């Protein structure tokens, strides 16, 4: 199964974007993003807190639909999914 992960804004600077990755059936949202983010310590720290949970301000979407942070660990990804991970952009 192949899924596409898209990071935005600061996450994109640190982790890249449009990452196509092979996943095993039954892979959940959180471990998938965790494994990608681990490629860059600063990127990981931007997305996750020290306990390995998403920072509370992170926005997750799957195929254009919001995934609540509280559901991410139990939300599976399937072949062809497009996942978006982004922070609110705050400057003005």
């Amino acid at each position, binding site marked *: 199964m192949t899924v596409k992960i898209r990071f*935005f*804004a*600061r996450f*994109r*600077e640190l982790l890249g974007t449009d990452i196509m990755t092979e996943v095993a059936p039954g892979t959940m949202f959180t471990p998938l993003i965790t494994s990608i983010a681990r490629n860059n310590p600063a990127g990981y720290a931007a997305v996750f807190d020290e306990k390995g949970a998403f*920072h*509370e*301000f992170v*926005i997750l*979407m799957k195929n*254009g*639909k*919001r995934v609540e942070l509280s559901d991410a660990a139990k939300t599976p990804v399937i072949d062809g999914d497009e996942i*978006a991970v*982004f*922070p*609110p*952009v*705050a*400057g*003005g």
Partner: protein
Amino acid sequence: MFSERELERYKRQVMLFGEEGQERLKKAHIFVAGAGGLGSPISIYLAVAGVGTITIVDMDVVDQTNLNRQILHFDRDVGRKKTASAEEKLRELNPDITINAIDVKIEESNAAKLVGNADGIVDAMDNYPTRYLLNDVAITKEIPLFHGGIRGFYGQATTIIPGITPCLKCIFPRAPPKEVFPVVGVTPGIIGTIQANEVIKYLLGSGELLTNRLFIWDGMETHAEELCVERNPSCKACSGMTTTKQARKKK
């Protein structure tokens, strides 16, 4: 009614939307929250378009580090109040409109009063706590909130019509931590101009607004895209509003 000078000033856009459209702009009152990176292009373009009354609020003093992006303020303005600097430039850009420049911090206690009877709020803030206050005021008054945010080469914008589209808290329920953000002036230039364009369309009542969509700009890739956004039925800010409610109609 327009003076001869006004008719000349607006001639090229009256070709687009007629004197009736220009009259809509003239009768409108828009509240711009912030006279910084976003507030500069927003207020400049609303002023030259002929939005009749612009209230612009900021509490800061012009700093040298502002000048790479806050194009309302010039080198000579360093140390002046941003509101004084903004008022001066906007009056010079268009002496036929009214500028209310208010030097105050937007807080829960004064936000609704500051917005007053404005037809819309433009978010040109640099922090989410104040944005949430503006979001609440927009919901209470049933007027649109034109959101924008920037960082580095990245920006986002959306147009919020309370009761119809997701509100800011539906989209971004929790604020990111405060930071001194990096930015190059073209980014607020692009996002602020999009916000001003939204205001103009809203006031004219024409075109498709940037509603239910989060516009995302990547200046490094010169790539724009949008994500669909939806109302959150359990949103703490707007879930009490029914979808049958309409935002206050354009004039």
